[in-house]
């Protein structure tokens, strides 16, 4: 039994324009101590799915599915039991750190409060632990910073403080939502280092949510790519990075900017994700997919094992469990006539910037996806 098992999670929002299915039958699991990435454009449903785990949806509703954590179905717990788990066994560090802290209380109080919510500790003990947490997330002079208000912190420090709050009760699962959004590059790098330290301890499982495949590739063992509320590809990070099996993943890879690459590579995938009320028929990606054929608009591809073409989500045991490389594209069930003809080229970043790190770490390499017949679209 994995630490977290999400099964067929389906979430709807009710808007003036109609019912929006923000998350559509998402299943995944996370083992204790493992770091798993959830990648997709903003609006793909990844943040919504993460908040739903702890019953923190403000307006959406979980209409189907199960979330088992340590064997308990979180969606069926009473609000009191759920509150005991929040911030204690599962913690979330939200994005947009400046706004995620209350401007009226000191940063220290906001950490100590999280400790006091779950443990009977003296105020002094809570304070000392909060200072230790500030130190752990890399805030200099933590003791004097304890009494600072959020507006006295930089954005990067706020993001660290948010992580400190999440770490307050030593959670078994830490969900980090877009930790680098809105931060400048140096601060991003420092934060990623912090996350790497945290996952290196191996005690805590991390679910890293990001729109940036590059960020996730650096940190995670496994990656889930989510598009329009569905998982379109999943697998170990190396497989995904070197051999993307879904055109959307390939497009995401092509849009990662690479240092030292001669050409301007800041391409993005043309088109936009379907508005969530009006969905295309068949494969949700087909209006943007360079390889779309008639079948794509007719039938929705299942998530299948890319090696065998057998579905992975219908209860049959996966070949290799959650580490199976699976993708939802008709190509892998042999239903595509022309096939996918992108080609993956690996650009070893050690050649470019000479930092001389091990080339076997996918985080230091960059995969370039070349698409001879669709250059215009993918670059």
């Amino acid at each position: 039994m994995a630490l977290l098992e999400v099964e067929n999670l389906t979430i709807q929002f009710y808007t003036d324009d109609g019912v929006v299915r923000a998350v559509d039958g998402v299943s995944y699991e996370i083992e204790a101590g493992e770091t798993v990435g959830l990648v997709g454009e903003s609006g793909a449903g990844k943040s919504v799915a993460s908040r739903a785990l702890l019953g923190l949806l403000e307006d959406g509703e979980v209409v189907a599915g199960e979330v088992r954590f340590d064997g308990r179905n979180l969606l069926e717990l009473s609000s009191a039991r759920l509150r005991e788990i929040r911030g204690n066994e599962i913690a979330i560090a939200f994005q947009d750190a400046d706004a995620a802290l209350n401007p009226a209380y000191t940063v220290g109080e906001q950490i100590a409060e999280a400790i006091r919510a779950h443990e009977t500790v003296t105020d002094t003990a809570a304070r000392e632990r909060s200072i230790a947490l500030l130190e752990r997330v890399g805030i200099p002079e933590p003791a004097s910073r304890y009494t600072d208000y959020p507006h006295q912190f930089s954005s990067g420090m706020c993001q660290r403080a948010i992580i400190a709050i999440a770490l307050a009760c030593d959670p078994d699962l830490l969900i980090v939502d877009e930790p680098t959004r809105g931060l400048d590059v140096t601060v991003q790098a420092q934060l990623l280092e912090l996350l790497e330290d945290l996952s290196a301890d191996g005690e805590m499982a991390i679910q890293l949510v990001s729109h940036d495949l590059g960020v996730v590739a650096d940190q995670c063992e496994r990656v889930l790519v989510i598009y329009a509320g569905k998982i379109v590809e999943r697998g170990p990070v190396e497989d995904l990075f070197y051999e993307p099996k879904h055109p959307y993943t390939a497009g995401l890879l092509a849009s990662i900017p690479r240092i030292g690459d001669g050409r301007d590579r800041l391409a993005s995938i043309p088109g936009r994700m379907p508005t969530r009320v009006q969905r295309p028929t068949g494969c949700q990606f087909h209006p943007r997919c360079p390889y779309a054929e008639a079948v794509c608009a007719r039938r929705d591809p299942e998530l299948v094992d890319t090696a065998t073409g057998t579905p992975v989500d219908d209860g049959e045991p996966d070949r290799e469990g959650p580490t199976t490389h699976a993708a939802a594209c008709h190509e892998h069930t042999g239903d595509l006539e022309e096939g996918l003809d992108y080609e993956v080229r690996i650009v070893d970043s050690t050649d470019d910037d000479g930092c001389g790190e091990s080339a076997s770490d996918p985080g230091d390499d960059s995969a370039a996806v070349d698409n001879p017949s669709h250059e215009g679209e993918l670059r």
Partner: protein
Amino acid sequence: MSLGTYALRRTLLAVPVLVGVSAITFSFVHLVPGDAIDVLAGFQGVDPEARDALREEYGLDDPIWRQYLAWVTDVLALEFGESPITGRDVGATIAERLPRTLALGVAAWLLSLAIGIPAGIVAALNHGRPADELTRLGALAGIATPNFWLGLVLLFIFGVHLGWVRVTPPDAGLASLEMLWFMVLPTITLGTASAALITRLLRASMARELQKAYVRTARAKGLRERTVVLKHVLRNSLTAVVTVAGLQLAILVDGAVVVEQVFAWPGMGQLVVDAVDQRDVPLIQASVLVIAVAVVLANLLVDLVYAALDPRVRYR
């Protein structure tokens, strides 16, 4: 900056404002059309001897700044002179009226907070549900009802019809039970509209705060919903209420003329109206000064409460 330092600085900043206010009030005598002596004599023909006495008393031959200094010195000693109309000591008149106005005003103000804040919270937390609609209707009625009408209706029902309360103030001390009992109706009359206003204001600002990201963080920590609302959301929502509540406190000091009329309440409102009517300039001067000082103090209070609620204010 600590709250103490901020409070000290902000208080010191109020001093020049008070000086300005006193200077303007002082110049009334000279700004009113006509000779200063006529003004001080209440525009009643007085014989030359009395004119000379007044000229002497007010030092009208001295340079203007000396007159001002002399006046301020008197005012600081709470000496406002005599009313040319009634011949009564102005300071004593105000000392008699002000406590009554303050008692009624503060009671009404506290009532408006005691009703407005809980009602605002309930409305915000039940956004769009029956409880919200109910407070909306109540608030609308509260704001739309003219207070003299509300006062008359209350008096008619509880005073005339049921006979539970007197229709005029009893001849008793301000702190006596009898008087407190009498004050119930005027307090409700005066506080209703403010309560309605505060309810709506708090509901709006709280609904806005509830959308903010820090609320989600607080919930994600596993805090009780009560803690999330009362500790995190309410504190940030109150800043919107503080400004309005503070200004209302200031306005209450000048008395609610209409409500005082309905309940025959001998407060500042009636006093000022009568003074203007009779062109009793020293009395107007003293009343205006009292009201202006109250406004300055209320503003100071607003700023201090604001700074206590929102630390960012202190560092600006």
